[in-house]
């Protein structure tokens, strides 16, 4: 990742935040707006970050994965279903049901990835087609099961959708408590401190995703595993001649990628809202691929790019909050369908390569034949 790229990311985020601050300052002080937007940005960037990490592991090992969207959707469904089953059918506690739900989601992601690996590594099917198969399968499978299990006569839950046991709790990082003495008697200071603390009060998957970004970066560029993973993605024959099992490395990395996509799926139905609806991933798997490309196939770069998309979603949410104070000359910002286009326009803009081309791994998408 070059500095120009990070600079561009920072610039877009500043523009998006600046727009909201300019409009909203008549209602709220800028500090509050910025901190709340930051908190939203980090939270909604979570599935994109995890999706991009999924892509990074697969593609660094030489397997193109456009099935991230489908992996996320399936995982979101089965994670949610698992939590409901544990709670309602097996009568487990809320906490354990939700936690197991996350594990089910990760497991589902891994299984979908296994399908992709079998198709693309063992049977050397065109990897774009393999990914498309997964995306279509995901839509059909989740839509069908959702209907069969929850609706209509004879369905498992007797036609009524049972309540999910709930969502993961927010973890409070006690910055406010630690730094309060520094404020003394200043109320303004305390208000700001509370606002800033809100940025760090995130849910477990959001926090986990950020930790995973840095962990993945370390793994990929500083460990034996990472060196071998990148080797099979760049020049598998060279890896083969020094005794590295190319197929095995690719399988394991695709499975790891699937687990990341599974965790991203869990974000939707176990961390964000406690419900499932068909097609709820809504193209985020594809946006995370764009983030991966813009981040030049590096975890930290992909995360930074995911934050841009997160910020554009935060813009959409805040435009609705400040709808009544939008100046008349900017009235188009009142239309959520226009503001809602921002992430997709950004995706197209970013992928044109105006900010400089990125380079995929040399053997990305190429099956290895001895």
């Amino acid at each position, binding site marked *: 990742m070059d500095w120009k790229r990070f600079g561009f990311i920072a610039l877009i985020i500043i523009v998006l935040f600046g727009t909201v601050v300019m409009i909203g300052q008549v209602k709220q002080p800028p500090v509050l707006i910025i901190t709340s937007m930051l908190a939203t940005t980090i939270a909604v960037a979570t599935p994109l970050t995890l999706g991009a990490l999924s892509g990074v592991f697969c593609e660094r090992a030489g397997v193109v994965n456009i099935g991230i969207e489908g992996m996320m959707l399936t995982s979101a469904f089965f994670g949610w279903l698992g939590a409901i089953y544990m709670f309602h059918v097996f009568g487990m506690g809320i906490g354990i049901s939700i936690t197991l739900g996350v594990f089910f989601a990760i497991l589902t992601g891994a299984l979908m990835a296994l399908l992709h690996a079998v198709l693309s590594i063992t049977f050397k099917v065109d990897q774009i087609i393999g990914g498309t198969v997964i995306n279509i399968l995901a839509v059909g499978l989740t839509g069908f099961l959702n209907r069969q299990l929850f609706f209509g006569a004879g369905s498992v839950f007797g036609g009524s959708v049972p309540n999910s046991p709930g969502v993961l709790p927010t973890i409070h990082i006690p910055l406010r408590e630690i730094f309060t003495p520094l404020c003394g008697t200043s109320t303004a200071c305390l208000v700001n401190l509370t606002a800033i603390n809100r940025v760090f009060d995130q849910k477990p998957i959001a926090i986990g995703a950020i930790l995973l970004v840095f962990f993945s970066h370390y793994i990929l560029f*500083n*460990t*034996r595993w990472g*060196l*071998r993973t*990148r*080797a099979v993605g*760049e*020049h598998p*024959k*060279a*890896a*083969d*001649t*020094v*005794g*590295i099992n190319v197929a095995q490395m690719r399988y394991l990395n695709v499975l790891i990628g699937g687990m990341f996509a599974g965790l991203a799926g869990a974000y939707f139905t176990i961390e964000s809202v406690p419900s499932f609806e068909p097609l709820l991933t809504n193209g985020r798997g594809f946006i995370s691929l764009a983030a991966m490309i813009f981040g030049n196939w590096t975890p930290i770069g992909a995360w930074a790019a995911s934050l841009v998309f997160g910020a554009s979603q935060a813009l959409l949410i805040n435009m609705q909050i400040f709808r009544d104070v939008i100046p008349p000359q900017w009235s188009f910002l009142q239309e959520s369908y226009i503001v809602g286009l921002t992430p997709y326009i950004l995706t197209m803009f970013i992928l044109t390569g105006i900010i400089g081309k990125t380079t995929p791994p*040399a053997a990305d998408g190429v099956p290895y034949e*001895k």
Partner: protein
Amino acid sequence: MAKKPVSSEVKTPIVLEAKEITKQFPGVLANDSVDFDLRKGEIHALLGENGAGKSTLMNLIYGLHHPDKGEIIVNGKTVAIHSPNDSIAAGIGMVHQHFMLIPVFTVAENVMLGDEITKRGSLDRATVAARINEISKQYGLDVDPNAIVGDLPVGLQQRVEIVKTLYRNAEIVILDEPTAVLTPQEAEDLFRIMRDLTGRGVSIIFITHKLKEVLAVADRITVMRAGRVVNTVVPAETNEAQLANMMVGRQVILTVEKKDHAASGDILKVDGLSVRDQRGLETVHNVSFTVRGGEVLGIAGVQGNGQTELSEALTGLREPHGGNVFIDGQDLTSKPPRIITAAGLAHIPEDRQRHGLVMSYTVADNMALCDYYRPPFSNRGVIQQKALDENARKLISAFDVRTPSPFVNAGKLSGGNQQKVIVARELSRSNVKLVIANQPTRGLDVGSIEYIHSEIIKMRDRGVAVLLISAELDEIMALSDRIAVMYRGQIVAIVETKKTTREQLGLWMAGAHAETA
């Protein structure tokens, strides 16, 4: 290349022995009961044409393939080699013809890959770099461990490959066609390194098809042909002609036979041509020359002096930004390749795999690439498969292309046979007036070189004009009637071959000025 003294009388122990190795590939018996042995500290050359089975034998020893029959004995013990891991463990290292290096990795990362040193889970780059520096010092193999491999010139990349084997404590090093990609200076340097290595007890198998190199550097020479070992000889008791004979299986003419031949009028006329490369730099400046019917004009020069851009401009692959090109009086400046081809150009391009063939097309399709759009290959826009097949069968036998069938992908053929497919397609066309051959024999074996040279001379004798571009001075001198020397984008001299010498040409190639003769 200085002649090596006859190897010492004292025979060192055998470190590697391959016994009755047999390997069958679909349609080819690649190795037929091959015996081979290597003594400690010797350079044992394995000589043979493309497809003779040299690389197969080495891939079997290195564990990339598995023999159907036979055994491999290392230091007196039979070893079972199932993968490169086993051969690496047995102390065998291999430098492949196409380097097995990852361009975006550093030298240290490439060297350690597969045998990484770690410290608490992290790659220990410092220790690896120290190891590399130690090996560099010990064997005179200067490399910077932190350099990105893709930025290094080919000669240095090859050193990295050698360091890779030594890092793994290899005592037996296989070098597969190591000089194919090197300049003469780099090759000399490699031979020095090879002697340094053997001086320290490393044993080397040197695979090549270049006779001069074998005689200069090997202690013993084993010649293979068609999957079998023909003979093993020592350099002192043989010569180039005998080796070539064993390799090809018949008498080989090492010099090209060429009768005097009267040239006719100008066919190719190049007038003040200037060309820019893709970076926009002018690499051909105001070049003018003519080629007459029935003569070969050779363009000599060190690679990278504008030859590539010149031939691209003449063949319509690159637009010149000044000057004119005439073929048989017709102005073809900046015309597309199809028009130039139709006007009588046969083009044997420099990069046969990128510009000469479609690697994923069959031999038959490749043989019709110039004329597929007109009868008999095409009828009202529909390809006539029958005509393609007939044409291919005719050319395959006329030009001796070794292919299992006309329907094999061109990419599956050996380099020599790929080049023959191109030569067959280009030279068999009916209206050829001009042949432009750029590096027509680079990387090919004796048999193919001989064949392509004779085809070029045949064209000349038929009254066709031939422009030959080559960095091999021997080739230029053997084939050309007149020689033009190119230096920094300009033609610095044009002389008749008979009236010049190797030394004189060498001086011009290095930039010495001359009046055109």
